């Protein structure tokens, strides 16, 4: 972060020498961000989702995994009806008799965890490869970018479908393996976006004087890349990261809906929607609608934040 701070500080002093107190870039970005009320609502939404996901087990009325507390007698209760153990199922129950509020809270945890987890891994892999491509150039650059181009010419859902279709395990595969598989598929789908983004900005930054200076000091390659180049390429990565996380969550839900994502034992929001789809024709809308709304709330919130961050962090739109 130091490089960004120093650079902005210099720019600020040049732009307005009278302004003695130099505000930090973080504060400036925050105040810029706050100017859009819609984006603030989005941010509150994201914080709320994360909060619910973190403290989920403590606020869920029942534990949907605890088979002893789930009674088949409670199945398909309409929203607001009381379950056998006395708790009110505010959003109804699903086909197995699980309270939908609890199932949604646990599903939210899984959806968010898979989305963010795969995003972070893809970010690390993509940024490393993109950085290598930009810094070393030549043949290395060509090979990495050819792979990126080839992958981006196929839609994400198709790549994920191919991966999950070919490594389809039998019905007895353990739950954690399915989670690992879907995270791996989402990483493969996403890394190319990060690689392309960071290569683009690194190519611009690489020609700047501070990198030249660092090279003149005979600093090692890794030090120049990680301490000098990387911090200055971080802004577009944050934007792409937010958008990609929303995309990954949506994709995971879609794949789970198709029966290729998470198994019945790890029900994400997508799986809950899929389960509810069987009951749609008989008018039992709640099993599918409420998890869907939760999914929607999460995706739209993240997208609103990402959209605003793109405007705020884009140096071309500043001033």
């Amino acid at each position: 972060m130091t490089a960004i701070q120093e650079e902005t500080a210099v720019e600020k002093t040049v732009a307005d020498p009278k302004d003695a107190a130099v505000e930090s870039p973080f504060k400036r970005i925050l105040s810029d961000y706050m100017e859009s009320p819609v984006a603030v609502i989005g941010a509150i939404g994201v914080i709320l989702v994360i909060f619910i996901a973190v403290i989920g087990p403590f606020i869920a009325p029942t534990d949907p995994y605890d088979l002893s507390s789930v009674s088949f007698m409670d199945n398909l209760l309409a929203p607001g009806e009381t379950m056998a153990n006395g708790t009110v199922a505010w959003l109804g129950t699903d086909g197995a008799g699980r309270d939908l509020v609890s199932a949604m809270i646990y599903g939210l945890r899984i959806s968010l965890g898979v989305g963010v987890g795969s995003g972070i891994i893809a970010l690390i892999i993509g940024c490393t490869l993109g950085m290598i491509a930009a810094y070393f150039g030549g043949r290395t650059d060509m090979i990495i970018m050819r792979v990126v181009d080839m992958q981006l010419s196929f839609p994400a859902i198709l790549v994920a479908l191919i991966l999950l279709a070919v490594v389809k395990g039998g019905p007895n595969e353990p739950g954690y393996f399915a989670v690992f598989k879907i995270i791996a598929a989402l990483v493969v789908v996403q890394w190319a976006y990060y690689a392309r983004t960071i290569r683009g900005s690194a190519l611009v930054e690489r020609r700047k004087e501070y990198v030249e200076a660092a090279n003149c000091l005979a600093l090692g390659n890794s030090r120049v890349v990680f301490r000098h180049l990387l911090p200055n390429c971080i802004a577009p990565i944050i934007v792409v990261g937010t958008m990609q996380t929303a995309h990954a969550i949506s994709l995971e839900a879609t794949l789970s809906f198709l029966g290729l994502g998470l198994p019945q034992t790890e029900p994400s929001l997508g799986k809950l929607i899929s389960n509810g789809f069987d009951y749609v024709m008989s008018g039992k809308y709640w099993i599918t609608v409420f998890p869907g709304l939760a999914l929607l709330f999460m995706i739209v919130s993240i997208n609103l934040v990402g959209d605003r961050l793109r405007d705020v962090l884009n140096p071309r739109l500043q001033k």
Partner: protein
Amino acid sequence: MTVFIIRRLMQAALVVLVMSFLVFSGVFLVGDPTEILVADDADQAERQAIIESLGLDKPFHIQYLRFLQKAAQGNLGESFVFNEPALQLIMDRLPATMELAVAALLISVVLGIPLGVIAGLRPEAAYSKIIMTGSILGFSLPTFWVGIMMIILFSVQLGWLPSTGRGDEIHYVLGFPTSLLTLDGWSHVLLPAVNLALFKLSAVTRLARAGTREVVHQDYVKFARAKGLTDRRVIFVHVLKNILIPVVTVLGLEFGGLVAFSVVTETIFAWPGIGKLLIDSIGLLDRPVIVAYLMIIVLLFVFLNLAVDICYSLLDPRVRLQDIKA
């Protein structure tokens, strides 16, 4: 030009070969189809006979070479489940998918371009903002969820439109089965097509809007207005013609995306196309059908990319000069 096309063709062939290897090895490595195909009470000899008849006892490289050899002759293996050539199964269902994709493409063009132009002409107006917000929603809402909501609203609650299948009245036009000739067919295709189109519709709207905003400030539009032409003529002749180029390019490129995304839509609306076949085959571990589907889709994509590349190079000679130098 010929050098360019030959070079691109060779690249495309390489991509197909690499993909065939990846797909085949992936499908080969995981999942044992005999578990499903062999009856539980079959003895060892029967089991062995089935494995041998399918060629599953051969080593990997032999199986792959045999696959390539047959694939070159247009034979992608027989479905384990249907006992029919896998390619035939896919070709039988391809028209349904194409019909859906074309209908979705039509919807996105017919609605998307006017919406984009309207929003681009008056970017500050309230209706423009509504259109743009709608397009953001179209981008971020998961297709499958919108599809379910459409079924709940239009099929279950209102009962206006059917939610499954493509209807019984299928007619043949030039040898292709289509349900677009009857009202019943249209009522079946409407919901899935709109569902599939939403994403593209948003994209086309945004493209058309961006194009319009750029074009209206060009000198030739100002000049046309200065000549005293009517608004209608300026919009339809001067603006529309010039925004069509990027829109058409993107549509051509993204047609493959529609076919890929139809997997989701077909599953929701029980549309008898190749997407639903893929999902069913994955469930049944029907290896040849999965491989055949993936190969057909890869071919489709490689072909579309190739076609777009060649069109670009025809329109812009700089592209092919660059490629020859490299």
